[in-house]
C-alpha cells in the first residue's frame, strides 16, 4: 500500500538555525496524524515542506508516492493546506472566495458549483457567505478557511492549528467538521496543534516534535500507557524532561 506521507530524515537549515534535524515519519491513507510540540519546534516548517512551500535542506518527502521536492506541481494537485495564520481576501464575499479557490484547485472535470455548495455546507455560514470576508468574526473566517481546505476532497489535507485562537464552540465545530469529513470521504489529514486535548480527540496517531527532532510517535492511548500519563500533555512534559 502506498503511504500518504513518507518523510525521511528531513532537515532544514535557515542560516545558522537548524529548524529540522532528521525528522522521519509515515502517515497511512485515511489517517488523522497529529504533530505536536512547543513554539519553534519545527511543526510549521515540516508542514511547509510537505506542502511544497519550502524545500528541505536534505532528506526526502513523498506524498502518495510522488516526490514533493521534485514534483511540486503534481503534489499540489492532491494536497490542500490550511496555514495557521491564514486569511481570506477582505473585499471578496465568502462565496466569491470559495469560488476563486475552487477554480484554482479544480480540474476541467470539476463541478465548481458542487464544490462551493459542499464548502457552504461544511462551514455552515449560510447567507453570511454573501457578505464580504472583512465583516466576518475570527471564528467565521476560520470555518470558511477549513471549508476551503476540505471542499475539493484532497487526498491529503494539511491543517496547521485548525482551531487556533477560537472559542470553545467554534473550535468544537471545526473539530467536528474535520472528523466527519475524514470519516465520510476518506481524506488523509495531517494537523499540527498546541492543543493536546484536540489532538487526542482527533488523531489516530501523533508525533511529538521538540527542537527540530521527532522525539516520540504513536497512538495517543498507547503513548499515555507507555509514559504512565493521564493525557498527552503529561506525556509531552515527560518526554522533553519537564516532568
Amino acid at each position, binding site marked *: 500500500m502506498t503511504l500518504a506521507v513518507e518523510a525521511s530524515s528531513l532537515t532544514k537549515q*535557515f*542560516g545558522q*538555525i537548524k*529548524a529540522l534535524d532528521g525528522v522521519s515519519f509515515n502517515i497511512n491513507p485515511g489517517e488523522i496524524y497529529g504533530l505536536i*510540540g512547543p*513554539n*519553534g*519546534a*519545527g*511543526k*510549521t*516548517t515540516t508542514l*511547509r515542506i510537505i*506542502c*511544497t*512551500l*519550502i*524545500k528541505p535542506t536534505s532528506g526526502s518527502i513523498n506524498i502518495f508516492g510522488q516526490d514533493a521536492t521534485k514534483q511540486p*506541481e503534481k503534489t*499540489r*494537485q492532491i*494536497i*490542500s*493546506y*490550511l*496555514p*495557521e*495564520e*491564514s*486569511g*481570506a*481576501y*477582505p473585499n471578496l464575499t465568502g462565496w466569491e472566495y470559495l469560488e476563486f*479557490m475552487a477554480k*484554482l*484547485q479544480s480540474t476541467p472535470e470539476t463541478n465548481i458549483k458542487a464544490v462551493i455548495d459542499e464548502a457552504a455546507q461544511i462551514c455552515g455560514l449560510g447567507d453570511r457567505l454573501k457578505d464580504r470576508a472583512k465583516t466576518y468574526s475570527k471564528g467565521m473566517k476560520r470555518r470558511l*478557511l477549513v471549508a*476551503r481546505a476540505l471542499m475539493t476532497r484532497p487526498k491529503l489535507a494539511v491543517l*496547521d492549528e485548525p482551531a487556533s485562537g477560537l472559542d470553545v464552540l467554534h473550535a468544537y465545530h471545526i473539530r467536528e467538521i474535520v472528523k466527519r469529513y475524514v470519516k465520510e470521504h476518506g481524506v488523509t489529514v495531517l494537523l*499540527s496543534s498546541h492543543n493536546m486535548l484536540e489532538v487526542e480527540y482527533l488523531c489516530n496517531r501523533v508525533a511529538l516534535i521538540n527542537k527540530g527532532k521527532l522525539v516520540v510517535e504513536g497512538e495517543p492511548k498507547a503513548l499515555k500507557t507507555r509514559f504512565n500519563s493521564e493525557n498527552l500533555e503529561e506525556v509531552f512534559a515527560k518526554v522533553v524532561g519537564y516532568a
Partner: protein
Amino acid sequence: MLKGFTTILVKELKELMRDPKILVGMIVLPLIMFPVLGLVMGYAVQSAQEQAQKATLLVVDNDNGNWSTLFVRYVNNSMNAIILNQTTPQTAVAEGLLQHYNSTTLVEIPAGFSANLSRHSAGELNITGTINVYSVFSGAGSIFSGFGGAVVSSIATGFNRAVAPDVVSVYQSSIIKGQIQEGVDASVLSSLMLSQSIALPITIMIMLTYAMQIAATSVAMEKEEKTLETLLTVPVDRFAILMGKVSSTIIVAGVASITVLIGYNYMLGSITGGIAGNIGSSIDMVALGLVPSVWGYTLLGISLFFTLLSALALAVVMSAFSENVRGAQAMVGYIYPLIFLPAMALIYLDVTSMPLAVQAIFFAIPYSHPIIASKAVVTGDYLTVILGIVYVAAFTIVIMYAASRLFATEKILTAKFRFGKRGKAKEPSD
C-alpha cells in the same frame, strides 16, 4: 498640558525615528535628492552661459554702411561674429550655414540701417534702425531656448546706451525645424512651452508613484492578510500568479496612460486657445508644428505604458521583501528619487544640454524616458523616443524575469530586506 501627551509623543517619535525606512525616506533622501537636483541645474545653467559666451553669431550685413560696421564691431567685443554678405537669412538657413558654423543665432542688418541711424543722429529721433534676430528653437522645455536671441538683445541695449537711447530695436524671430517663423520670439515660445512641459512630468510623477503604491500592496496585502501561503500551494503555475498580479496593474496603467494623454491633449488645446494669449497671443502652436502628431501621441503613450509597466513590476518585486503593506509602501519609496529627479530636472532642462555623464545617468533611469519622449515628440525626434521605449522594455523584461524567479522559490515567503545585513530566511514561528 494634556495628560499623557508627552509620553505618547516621545514614544511615537522613538518608533518613527527608529524605523530606518522612515529615516531614509523622509530625511536622508531629501537631503541627497535636492542638492543633487541643484547641482545638475546649476551645472546646466553654468554651461549654458559659457556656451552662449563662446557661441558664434552669424551676421548677415545687407547694409554694409558705417553704422552696421560699428554695430558688428560692438557685437564682436562680446561674441564671436562671422559676417556673411550677399545673402538673406532664408538662404543662410536653407544652406545650413548655422549648423556649419555651429551657431544657433543669426542676425540680419537690413539695408538702410546706417541711413536710418544717420538720420537719427541728425535729429530725426523718430527714425531708428532695426536688426532682425533669428534664434534656433531647439525644443520644448529648455529654459535656454532663445538664449542667443536674448544675448543679442542685451548687446543692442548696450549699443543704445553707448550711442543713443532706443536707436536700435530688435525684431525677434525663430527658426523651428529648419523654417523661419517671422515674429515668433524664441524666448517667449520657450516660456510657453515650459508652461506645458511642467504639467506632463508632474502628472507622470504623480501617476508613477501612485501606481507603484497600488502595485506594492498587491503582494504585501497577500502577506498581511495571510493569503499568500494558501495561494502558493494551489496547483497553479507561480508565473500565472505573478502575471495575474502584474496584468491587473497593466490594465490600470493602460487606462491611466490614456487618461493622461487625453488630459494632456486637452491642456495643450486650452493653452494654445486661450492661456497663450497672456504670453504670446500671436503664437499658433499648431501652425508652428509644436504640437505632437498622432504618431507622436502614440509613441508617447507606448513610452508611458512601458515605463508604468516597469515601475509596477519593480514595485511587485520590492513588495515581496516586505511583511506588510506599510513596509511595502516604504520600500517602493526608495525608488521615488529616481522618479522625482528626472521629472523635476527635465521640466527646466533639455537632456541634451547636460554633460555627457549626467546625460548617461538620466538615460539609464527608466522613468526619465516618458518625460524625454514628451519633449521629443514635439520636435519630431522620434528616434530618441523609440530607443527609449526599447530600453525601458528591456529593463521591464529583466525585472519581470527577476520577479518570476522570486515567485518560483521559497524566497517569496522568506526573503526580507534588512538594513546593513543581507536578507535572511526567517524561521516561521510555530
